[in-house]
């Protein structure tokens, strides 16, 4: 695959600077808007964290996971269990979710990450379905009827927003520093050519498991904050198809294997989805689908790719042709 205008292992630095600026702006949302708008933006941040998680395994390491929702759900249930034991500290929720998701990723990753290509994708899909089914049948966790969680009152409700903002920021900065470290280069080497990576001394299975564990910690943290913010969790909410597919689509649209891409993708996609739902109550999924198809056709390497493109429309048309070839 040719790289045109994707600056280095973290992606275009300009795009990253813009994304950091937007993150700072997003801090102001609860000050001016409460209720619905705040929830919309909190969901954007939630999807961003999940997209960053997927980006590490799918974008950087090149292993397309269809099972990251398992981490999100596990994270949510970590909060649910802690809340049932009277713990209400959000940091505790996130900490437990990260530990549980990392351990789960290592245990499951050991057999699953030996698979390559489509087989890995299908196996991860199976993992997600299995985890959802197991939780739905555990009465301790409320089974399929779920768990209610005590929510903060209205005056303190924005705490969830800020917590989710921190989780998204942590995922973004974590991705940035990991990508620039030795770890990031191991991930990309595995993506580009696993055999060649092994010859250079990279123990592929080990690094894939590390990538998946960090990936899971990001998604799990998002789930851990989602649960109390939502006030109620059950298997169908926490293991929703949307929560599985959106982060993947967002990452690819924004630019997979870049630091700015997942955030840009989440902002645009979750934002567009929200607007379309408002204006086209019934047909919004149709427009949403059409939009995704168009972006994939016209921006084959994601939106971040546009930042590095020099030479206007002509360069863009030429580049699209290069990628299609």
């Amino acid at each position: 695959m040719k790289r045109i205008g994707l600056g280095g292992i973290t992606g275009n630095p300009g795009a990253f600077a813009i994304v950091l600026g937007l993150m700072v702006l997003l801090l102001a949302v609860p000050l001016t808007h409460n209720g619905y708008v705040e929830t919309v933006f909190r969901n954007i941040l939630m999807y961003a964290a999940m997209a960053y998680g997927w980006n590490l395994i799918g974008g950087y390491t090149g292993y397309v996971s269809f099972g990251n929702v398992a981490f999100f759900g596990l994270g949510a249930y970590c909060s649910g269990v802690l809340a049932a034991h009277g713990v209400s500290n959000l940091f505790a929720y996130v900490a437990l979710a990260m530990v549980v998701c990392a351990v789960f990723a290592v245990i499951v990753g050991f057999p699953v990450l030996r698979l390559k290509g489509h087989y890995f994708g299908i196996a991860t899909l199976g993992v997600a379905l299995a985890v959802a089914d197991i939780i739905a049948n555990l009465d301790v966790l409320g089974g399929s009827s779920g768990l209610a969680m005590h929510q903060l009152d209205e005056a303190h409700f924005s705490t969830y927003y800020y917590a989710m903002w921190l989780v998204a920021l942590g995922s973004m900065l974590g991705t940035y520093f990991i990508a620039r470290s030795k770890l990031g280069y191991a991930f990309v080497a595995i993506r580009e050519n696993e055999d060649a990576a092994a010859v250079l001394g990279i123990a592929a299975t080990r690094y894939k498991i590390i990538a998946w564990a960090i990936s899971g910690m990001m998604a799990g943290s998002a789930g851990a904050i989602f649960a109390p913010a939502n006030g109620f969790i059950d298997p169908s909410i926490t293991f929703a198809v949307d929560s599985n597919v959106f982060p993947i689509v967002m990452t690819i649209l924004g630019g997979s294997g870049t630091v700015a891409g997942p955030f840009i993708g989440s902002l645009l996609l979750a934002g567009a989805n929200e607007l379309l739902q408002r204006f086209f109550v019934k047909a919004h999924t149709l427009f949403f689908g059409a939009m995704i198809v168009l972006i994939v056709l016209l921006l084959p390497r994601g939106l971040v790719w546009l930042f590095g493109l020099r030479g206007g429309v002509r360069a863009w048309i030429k580049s699209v042709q290069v990628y299609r070839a």
Partner: protein
Amino acid sequence: MSAAVESSVALRITDVGMRFGGLWALSEVTFDVVRGSVVGLIGPNGSGKTTLMNVISGVYKPTTGEVTYAGKRIADVPTHDVCHLGIARTFQIVKPFASLSVRENVAVGAMYGREGAKRSTRASFERAQELLEVVGLARVAERPASDLTIPDRKRLEVAKALALDPDVLLLDEVMAGLNATEVEEALELLRDVNKRGVTLIVVEHLMKAIVSISTTVVVLAEGRKIAQGAPSDVLASQQVIEAYLGSRWVKRQEQLAEIEAEREQAKRVQPPQAGA
């Protein structure tokens, strides 16, 4: 064998056989590689050179026999740890990380190779830059590896392998596609690497290059070792000529030589007749 001789052996290849389905790509290949030497591995297409390189570098586990390095069986070592033993290789079909820059490609080797654990990310990049200067790729260090021409990709392969700080370097056709000047440069580079104490095993089709650099030449034909020795001796051997040019060619040469000899004889015999 005395202890001194024993310690001078870097790689020991013992009775190696490699079967793919019904085909033995290698059988009963045995030879030692002396530390500090340059072994030229030659043979016609399909004679098993690359297969042997793959066995030595641990990519393939041999069906029979074994390759040992410093007393360790390569087959028992995971592929990603072979370079930590001190064995590095290049690929005949080059395998750059296409989306990474040329320097990043080499830096990955410096990060995860034998000395990698001791190097910071920054030190790895510095090491990569040094090596790019050594192989003559400093001018394209920032370019994506996918932009490189084939000869430059071969250079990149060598730089990546050197980044692993190897004791033994396996080079699989790194000179293919280079012009005469470039071959000379490449040979100079390899001699230099060898002078620094790195043992080389070189697969190459260019006989001139092999003869000029090798201390020992091993010839494979149809998966078997048919000759081993000093370059000039090996290349003069009847068996090697047969392997390369075919037994019919050799037979025809013999026939031609006979005819020539008969003519000569006839010439020598004729003059008296003419005089009579």
